[in-house]
């Protein structure tokens, strides 16, 4: 096996000889540099492979061939080999970027200093001698200062000076620590410590750990003493940022892992926990308010270090900390470089590779699938859940959420086009003199405050060769390695190979995008793929999964046809949509909690990027991802404390109900319950038309599926005296009432439909929470039928928007003459949606009310009826403003909606008609599914379904209605045989004919009087609340940022204060 | 006996350290810094580590003071009074 000393000898030899070498032949010397950095990567690779299979704990070598206790020893275990591999990988990555960069390639001295930094980092990781750690620490910091000095920004000297003061002080403390340690232990070698010596007794016992630890911790930039580090991040070049956070921080953490075993665990563990939590939360908050990209990443890396400290302090498996650390180091250095290219080119408009790469790196940093961070965070939380250490779980999840806030804000603004104002479109009726455009009113408060709002790249991204420079090849390579390592690690944690096959579909479509295959062809392939997926998955599904499998597959499959309407080439669309479909299906087929959560997160990610494709979708996407992350973290917390398996048949009831409550809260956020609904309308409305139709038909049902999945869990429901299901019922009803009321006053069609689907989901939740046979049938019946008629409505509306180009209802009018087919499908849809008898909508309403009345929830039943009444209002308003009334001159030559949009509508219509004629087509299979959970209280006699309360014969009702409808129609036809259509304004109108008839189209502020009466119900209190929280968090981060005042003496003061803080944590000195 | 020498040396070192900090003229405070490390090297000699004494003498009082002076002369023209 290779002797660890070679790592040091090779780099040092190269560093010393390089000045001469460069004088002789600069090009060759640079190649030699690559060779050296490559060997630095290869050696640890050899170790890693040998150690992992020969599983000898150590590669051990003492310098100077004497017995090991006399000399300085170098040791490489399994973990260190892995860390070395990654750290040197990042080093090679930085070298390739900088030595061959176009504008200012690094010359002689800089390359030397970079190799010395690598030497320092490698030394820190492998040495087993305390003083040697000090020497290598000094090596890496001093060579970093050298590199700092040649940054482009001349503020670097101010930052560098502060950095030096801080690192000088930390090395002073470390030296004092070594002195005390030597007094106590008599030797400096970590492996040859004489046991039996009372390490931590008496005054000395506290002092040496205090100073050693403060030496290392200060260098790691902890929360209240990292001002100096952050100023350096802001001023230094991107490469230095990558080095500081990628290489140095990682090496120092390994040093920490060496020192921790020396100190008594009941002192060090709580200390690490406290320091880690404070750093994790405070640094994230400080990063939140940053406007400088590099400083934001600086704070974020100090926060990530905090997370690693928490993991170390919580005493869980150290490998988790290492995986989190390494993912951070790779992703952060990658992000530094993509950020550099992004900032240079202003916006992601035509930089597809950059968009993909920075998204991948951001996802990796947040510990979302498919990267290793996800598996590590999951196992960590499982262990913490086992010890029911609720506080740490809360800290970890809160921090990750805060990180999500600013990382996704940056990513969203970078991807979105500069046309996108980054602010939320007005949700309430624009005041009368408002021009028919949008007046921006609010956002989650963060984007606009930080002045980043104007920036942003456009999602209409297309792969063009000029935007691709080989410089982006290196980060791409890093991203690929990370994805592969992520998949391998997550497979180890719990994904079976069979589970991962469908996800290869995403890669297939990405490859298609690379070859610029036109969207139409891709859509065809997608339909074929979804059919294959259907057959591949069908045998595994049972019970609820079959129903929801049908909804997801049939729903998205049919709406793929609508994608044929896209002209030319829109990259990423099919990859993301197929990804969404695949993750939905894998939610159904997952066997363990981990698989379920993995696919849940994949769904969140793919849907977020789909939303982001919309033109003005930054605000929508931003809110979407924040609330989805919050919901995912609640569910993650729930799963971690659940101990049992959440999936259907292997159900094991949990002892305490807290995890179930957390999961319910997560689900409430996901289906946009009353308090947390502000993300749904903006994201559904701002996504592209066909995408938002998929969202409201299929995606809104996932929350409902999770409820049914955990059905049995929620049956045991009294938690601290509160009947959770009763509460959930009320949330469902209030959501439906709120959804319908808000939909009433919208001027924008897509907002109306978004609120309407939110309201309908409220019904489904109400149905579920009744927890009775009839309740579940009504909920599932509505889930299936709602998918159909909201699909019809959405597609017909997108046909109108496609043709007329406007989303405001009052600007259209009288389109029945131009677009009759869309009108018919819209008419059927609103009849079904509002529950008017002949069609299937009434079936859902009938089941719902009989379930509610049977259960005795009378007030809820009344509220539900009121909500369905209001639903009828806005639906009529929708169809009246668009199709009926006066025609507008500009839309006289509008053609019918294109065929790809019409076909899915009429497929859905056929299904709706079928279910309306024969309701038992759907209700019977539902009954068989629900049988095991609740005894059936519904009897069948022919076509008549009889429940305890009432009865309903869908078939007979349909015949009677047809009869009653056709006889008067025939009578009218006979009486008015020869009738001819009249031109637009030939009506009995007392006043003389207005100059432009379309001005009399009564559509704007249609329910004005209703708003006067009940407007107070719709005050945007909730969005005010969320804006308030956004602004509060922003001010908090502003306040915290003030702590780093920029004055070097202030920073020294911070550091000394921190040492005192550590000494208190250590239990005070004497 | 030796203790008395040590005490005197320590006092000299402390006084010159304090003078180095509070003196207004920069050159004199640099010199005082040099004196502190000179006294330190003598103390090392007395405490039986000649190697360290030589290093401290050469680097501490010699080179550090010179480097300080060179740096100071570079920025002397900006020297606003304390």
């Amino acid at each position, binding site marked *: 096996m290779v002797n660890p000393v070679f790592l040091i000898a090779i780099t040092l030899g190269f560093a010393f000889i390089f000045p001469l070498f460069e004088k002789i032949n600069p090009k060759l010397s640079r190649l030699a540099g690559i060779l050296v950095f490559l060997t630095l990567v290869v050696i640890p690779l050899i170790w890693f492979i040998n150690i992992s299979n020969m599983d000898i704990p150590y590669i051990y070598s003492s310098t100077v061939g004497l017995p090991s206790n006399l000399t300085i020893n170098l040791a490489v275990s399994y973990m260190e080999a892995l860390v070395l591999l990654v750290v040197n990988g990042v080093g090679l990555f930085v070298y390739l970027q900088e030595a061959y960069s176009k504008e200012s390639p690094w010359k002689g001295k800089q390359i030397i200093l970079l190799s010395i930094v690598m030497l320092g980092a490698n030394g820190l990781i492998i040495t087993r001698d305390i003083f040697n750690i000090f020497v290598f620490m000094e090596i890496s910091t001093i060579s970093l200062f050298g590199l700092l000095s040649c940054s482009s920004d001349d503020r670097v000297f101010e930052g560098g000076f502060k950095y030096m003061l801080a690192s000088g002080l930390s090395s002073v403390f470390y030296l004092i620590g070594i002195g005390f340690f030597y007094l106590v232990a008599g030797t400096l070698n970590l492996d040859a410590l004489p046991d039996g010596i009372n390490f931590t007794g008496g005054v000395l016992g506290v002092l040496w750990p205090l100073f050693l630890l403060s030496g290392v911790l200060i260098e790691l930039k902890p929360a209240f003493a990292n001002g100096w580090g952050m100023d350096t991040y802001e001023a230094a070049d991107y490469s230095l940022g990558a080095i500081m956070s990628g290489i140095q921080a990682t090496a120092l953490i390994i040093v920490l892992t060496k020192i921790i075993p020396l100190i008594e665990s009941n002192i060090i563990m709580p200390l690490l926990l406290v320091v880690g939590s404070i750093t994790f939360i405070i640094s994230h908050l400080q990063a939140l308010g940053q406007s400088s990209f590099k400083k934001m990443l600086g704070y974020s890396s100090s926060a990530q270090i905090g997370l690693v400290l928490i993991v170390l302090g919580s005493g869980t498996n150290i490998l988790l900390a290492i995986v989190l650390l390494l993912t951070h180091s790779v992703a952060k250095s990658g992000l530094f470089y993509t950020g550099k290219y992004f900032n240079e080119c202003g916006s992601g408009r035509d930089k597809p590779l950059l968009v993909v790469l920075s998204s991948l790196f951001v996802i990796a940093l947040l510990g979302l699938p498919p990267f290793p961070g996800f598996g590590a965070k999951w196992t960590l939380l499982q262990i913490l859940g086992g010890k029911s250490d609720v506080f740490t779980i809360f800290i970890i999840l809160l921090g990750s959420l805060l990180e999500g806030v600013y990382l996704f804000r940056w990513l969203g603004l970078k991807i979105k086009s500069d046309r996108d104002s980054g602010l939320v479109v007005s949700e309430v009726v624009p005041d009368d003199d408002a021009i028919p455009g949008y007046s921006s009113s609010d956002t989650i408060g963060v984007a606009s405050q930080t002045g980043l709002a104007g920036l942003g790249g456009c999602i209409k991204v297309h792969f063009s060769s000029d935007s691709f420079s080989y410089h982006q090849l290196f980060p791409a390579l890093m991203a690929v390695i990370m994805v592969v390592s992520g998949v391998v690690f997550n497979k180890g944690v719990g994904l079976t190979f069979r589970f991962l096959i469908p996800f290869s579909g995403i890669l297939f479509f990405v490859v298609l995008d690379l070859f610029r295959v036109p969207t139409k062809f891709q859509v065809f392939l997608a339909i074929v793929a979804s059919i294959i997926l259907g057959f591949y998955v069908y045998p595994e599904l049972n019970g609820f999964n079959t129903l929801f499998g049908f909804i997801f597959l049939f729903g998205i499959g049919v709406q793929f046809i609508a994608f044929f309407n896209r002209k030319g080439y829109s990259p990423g669309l099919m990859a993301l949509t197929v990804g969404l479909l695949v993750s939905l299906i894998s939610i159904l087929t997952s066997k363990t909690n981990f698989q379920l959560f993995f696919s849940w997160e994949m769904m969140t990610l793919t849907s977020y990027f789909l939303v982001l494709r919309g033109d003005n979708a930054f605000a929508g996407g931003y809110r979407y991802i924040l609330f989805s992350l919050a919901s995912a973290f609640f569910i993650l917390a729930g799963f971690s404390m659940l101990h049992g398996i959440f999936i259907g048949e292997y159900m094991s009831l949990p002892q305490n109900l807290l995890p179930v409550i957390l999961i319910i809260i997560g689900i409430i956020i996901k289906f946009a319950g009353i308090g947390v609904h502000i993300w749904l309308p903006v994201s559904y409305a701002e996504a592209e038309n066909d995408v938002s139709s998929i969202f409201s038909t299929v995606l809104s049902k996932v929350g409902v599926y999770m409820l049914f999945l955990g059905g049995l869990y929620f049956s045991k429901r009294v938690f601290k005296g509160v009947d959770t299901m009763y509460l959930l019922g009320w949330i469902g009803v209030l959501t439906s009432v709120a959804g319908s009321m808000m939909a009433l006053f919208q001027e924008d069609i897509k907002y109306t439909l978004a609120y309407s689907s939110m309201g309908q989901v409220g019904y489904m939740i109400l149905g579920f929470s009744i927890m009775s046979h009839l309740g579940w049938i009504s909920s599932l019946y509505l889930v299936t039928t709602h998918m159909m008629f909201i699909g019809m409505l959405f597609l017909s509306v997108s046909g109108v928007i496609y043709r007329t180009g406007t989303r405001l209802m009052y600007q259209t009018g009288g389109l029945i003459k131009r677009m009759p087919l869309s009108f018919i499908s819209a008419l059927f849809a609103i009849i079904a949606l509002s529950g008017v008898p002949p069609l299937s909508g009434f079936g859902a309403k009938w089941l719902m009310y009989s379930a509610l*009345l049977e259960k005795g929830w009378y007030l809820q039943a009344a509220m539900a009826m*009121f909500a369905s009444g209001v639903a009828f209002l806005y639906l009529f308003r929708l169809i*009246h403003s668009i199709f009926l*009334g006066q025609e507008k001159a500009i839309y006289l030559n509008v053609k019918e909606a294109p065929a790809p949009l019409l076909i899915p509508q009429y497929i859905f219509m056929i299904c709706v008609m079928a279910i309306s004629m024969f309701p038992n087509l759907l209700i019977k299979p539902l009954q068989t599914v629900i049988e095991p959970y609740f005894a059936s209280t519904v009897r069948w006699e022919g076509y008549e379904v009889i429940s305890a309360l009432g*009865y309903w014969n869908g078939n007979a*009702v349909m015949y009677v209605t047809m009869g009653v409808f056709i006889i*008067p129609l025939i009578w009218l036809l006979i009486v008015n045989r020869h009738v*001819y259509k009249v031109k637009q304004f030939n009506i*009995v109108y007392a006043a003389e004919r207005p100059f432009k008839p379309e001005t009399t189209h009564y559509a704007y502020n249609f329910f004005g009087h209703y708003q006067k009466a*009940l407007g107070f119900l719709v005050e945007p209190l909730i969005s005010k609340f969320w804006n308030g929280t956004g602004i509060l968090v922003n001010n908090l981060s502003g306040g915290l940022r003030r702590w780093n005042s920029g004055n070097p003496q202030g920073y020294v003061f911070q550091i000394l204060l921190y040492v005192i803080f550590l000494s208190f944590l250590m239990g005070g000195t004497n | 006996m030796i203790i008395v020498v040590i005490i005197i040396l320590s006092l000299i070192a402390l006084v010159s350290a304090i003078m180095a900090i509070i003196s207004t003229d920069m050159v004199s405070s640099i010199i005082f810094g040099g004196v502190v490390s000179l006294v330190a090297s003598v103390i090392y000699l007395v405490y039986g580590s000649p190697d360290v004494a030589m290093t401290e003498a050469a680097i501490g009082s010699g080179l550090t003071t010179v480097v300080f002076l060179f740096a100071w002369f570079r920025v002397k023209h900006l020297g606003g009074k304390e």
Partner: protein
Amino acid sequence: MLSAILTKTFYTFISLMVILNYALLLIGSMARIRAKVQGRVGQPVWQPYIDIIKNYGKRTAVTHGVMFYLGPVFRLAGGLGTYLFMPVVYGFVMFENFSFSGDLLLVMYFIFFGQLGMALGAGESGHPYSPLGVSRGLAQMTAFELPFALAVISIVAQYGTLSITEIVAAQQGGWQNWVAFTNPFAMIAGMLAFLGMSMQNPFSVVIAPQEIPIGPPTEMHSAFLGMLQTNRAIFNGAKMVLFMNLFWGGATHKYLLVAILIMVVKTFLIYLYVNIVGASFPRFKTEQSIRFFLGVPTIIGIIAVILQSI
């Protein structure tokens, strides 16, 4: 099988004829009574017959499009549908229509069917007044829908069934176990809601004669208007029968003719109540009527529900 269908259609035809003629006469006589009260001679009692025959007689050559054509058809289908799924006279096969295949919920939602039809037809006509009237009508409908729903729910809570026939059956045996007396709050809420349904004066803003000449049906004429008028008769008749069944013990007796007579008397009184209120109140604005319905009637309804559910 075929004979059963034939007899069924014959019975339905008879019950339709009964309710149609009775309703027309009722409207005619009520108009005359109101005139007498206001000191006028008033129109002849059979005036509605004349209007219908006149309108159906007229030939028209004008239509505003398919939806305009289908508007009245929808409206009439809604009225007929509401009527057909309700037992008019309890206990006689002839008058039980199709009540066995749909319960109270179906009837309530059929009212929507009529409203939707009228709204679509009016919207298509292109006349600015009709959608104005429609928006007022729909807004008011949701408002009075709430107390009516609460009343219905409290009845369902009381008798534990949704089918109208069972509700009527439960109210037999003297006036003291009618819903009006066993569950008075429900009755009050229901009757107040009925005011909203009847488009009579306090809530007649929808078809305000001067403001927006007769609102939604402005553009309707000839056969279309005739169909609307027939529907007005049948629909009001159906609503009165519904309220009779729900609150006033329905019409039942050994002999069919006496039962029909009881039904006539009861529905007459209900209609009289509405007209008296109509004659003595000014017209509400839409938001006033919405606020009214969501105020006192809803509270009474809630009390009714709570009373029943404990």
